[in-house]
């Protein structure tokens, strides 16, 4: 395409930007009809955006470490004096560690899900919603992105294993990462599901805190779940987080050289009416719940205009 006379009405700024630079030839793009490949590309780019944003947001990485560290070192060291007698020689920090691995993921995943509320507030959600792709691709990308970010955050805490007397092994690293990914996936799916209905940031964070904080406390992240009062046992068994904390603790304890008695007290098996729930089923329960919530989130976003 040839250079044409510029319009006098064009501002100096725009003229300066294009003057001297020959106008690049017109590149005509054709947007292909929707296909599974275009959906995959959409999922991938939404996922990648979460990672890019995480990487740019150093502040968030640091701030979301504060809470887990408080639990681990302040609460863990503080209560150690009270609990030394009853933990059969196991450091309380070591006991709490699997719970803290879960909490860090939970709260990061919550913030990841909150980003969909921000996106709505800052208009970016609209840019994604008008693209010629399925809403489900956007939601799946968002949930996977949030899950990835949360488990990356979890990896930082994995680096602290030495400080709580947990030896490293390939099994530990892979296992913790996989469990964190799973938990983060489910929590993000839950958050995105909530975000489909609650469009105000304050209300969203309020609702999430109101639900996630009790779930965390009841889950047994900070105490053994063997001999709880009846009402708490019921709540504990209903709480989905229980089924993420228990496999995590089992995984960590498998790395330790502790007495059978200590293991039985500190990491008792989860039971339903006396039936011992297998670890694999516990993990599956967390996954299944995540999938159900993802399904609801997709339905919610697809129904909206």
């Amino acid at each position, binding site marked *: 395409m040839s250079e044409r006379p510029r319009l006098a009405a064009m501002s100096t*700024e725009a003229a300066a930007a*294009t003057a001297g630079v020959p106008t690049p030839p*017109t*590149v005509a793009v054709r*947007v292909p009809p*929707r296909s599974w490949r275009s959906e995959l590309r959409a999922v991938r780019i939404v996922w990648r955006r979460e990672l890019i944003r995480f990487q740019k947001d150093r502040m968030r990485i640091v701030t979301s470490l504060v809470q887990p560290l408080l639990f681990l070192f302040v609460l863990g060291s503080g209560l150690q004096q009270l609990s030394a007698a009853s933990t059969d020689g196991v450091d309380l920090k070591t006991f709490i560690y699997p719970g803290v691995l879960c909490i860090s993921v939970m709260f990061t995943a919550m913030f990841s899900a909150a980003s969909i509320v921000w996106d709505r507030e800052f208009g970016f959600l609209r840019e994604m919603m*008008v693209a010629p792709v399925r809403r489900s691709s956007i939601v799946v990308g968002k949930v996977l992105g949030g899950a990835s970010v949360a488990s990356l955050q979890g990896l930082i805490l994995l680096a602290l294993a030495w400080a709580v007397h947990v030896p490293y092994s390939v099994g530990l690293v892979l296992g913790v990462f996989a469990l964190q990914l799973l938990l983060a996936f489910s929590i993000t799916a839950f958050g995105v599901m909530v975000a489909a209905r609650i469009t105000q940031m304050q209300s969203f964070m309020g609702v999430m805190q109101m639900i996630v904080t009790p779930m965390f406390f009841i889950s047994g992240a900070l105490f053994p779940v063997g001999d709880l009062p009846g009402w708490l046992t019921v709540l504990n068994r209903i709480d989905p987080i229980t089924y993420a904390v228990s496999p995590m603790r089992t995984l960590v304890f498998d790395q330790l050289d502790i007495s059978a008695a200590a293991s039985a007290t500190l990491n008792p098996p989860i039971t339903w009416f006396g039936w011992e729930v297998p670890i694999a089923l516990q993990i599956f329960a967390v996954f299944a719940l995540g999938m159900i919530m993802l399904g609801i989130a997709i339905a919610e976003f697809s129904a909206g205009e």
Partner: protein
Amino acid sequence: MPAPAISVKDLRKSFGDFEAVKGVDFAVDTGEVFGFLGPNGAGKTTTINMLCTLTRPTSGQAEVAGFDVVTARDDVRRHIGLVFQDQTLDGYLSAEQNLRLHAELYGVEKALVKPRMEQVLRMVGLWERRGSQVLTFSGGMRRRLEIARGLMHSPRVLFLDEPTIGLDPQTRASIWGYIRQLQRQEEITIFMTTHYMDEAEFCGRIAIMDGGEIVALDTPTALKEAVGADRIRIETADDERAIAELRERFGLEATVSEGAVSFAVADGEEFVPRLFAELEVAIKAVNLSRPTLDDVFMSHTGSTIRDAEESASKNRNRAAMQAMAGRR
């Protein structure tokens, strides 16, 4: 004659019992710059949202780029570019990343992403700043980037909802520069809304919208001609004589207002030379004013655009509350 880029038949949208768009009909030709003019709350954005498949019409039909906005939603989306009134960029990403994300969402062929990006970023003068975070951009730069993004996938129709609102005159001028450049370089139809009268002048045709209806639709020139006369004001040495002479020689009724003689004629530019040649009273000053789109708006709606905005804002609040109540 190619098929129209946009054709709309009896399109309506209600929010609860409030009818935001009351049955509009129009067609936009390929390559045209078509403007929607009207006060805030006139139903412009609702109409544009229906054409962009963001809002489902209550009734009526609309086709964009040859596809129905309800039954072929994805096909419409593939062929349109959107620049919204509120910004929709990701401030944490760089300009380049924003465009790349858009290209991926739209499935732009990988080999074309880079050259197309360079083209659109150069056009809006942001190529040098492609690596900067959007958070560091000024309002005008962001709007330019949004226009570039809207063009990333070579849309057949570009929708611009108030593209120049809240921008300084210089940026507004450059945005119009891009729109003209686009018209020359690409086969693109531009549909825009504005409530700046002076900008509507740049459109090929404009539709004036008020209270959910199109009250007039034509080229700016034709619309102004339809309003009629130019107004001429002269300052003379003897106003009384001038008025008498105007009546005798030209058959014009003139009045004195604010110290000048003023009267209306059909074609002011051609009349002024005759006036100087034939009027015997000495003329000290002359002022010719053509009808503006403000006058056009006034003649069709009976109010100035500012007054219309005030009364519309009441309706708008009502509509917004109903829309909220209606939402899950």
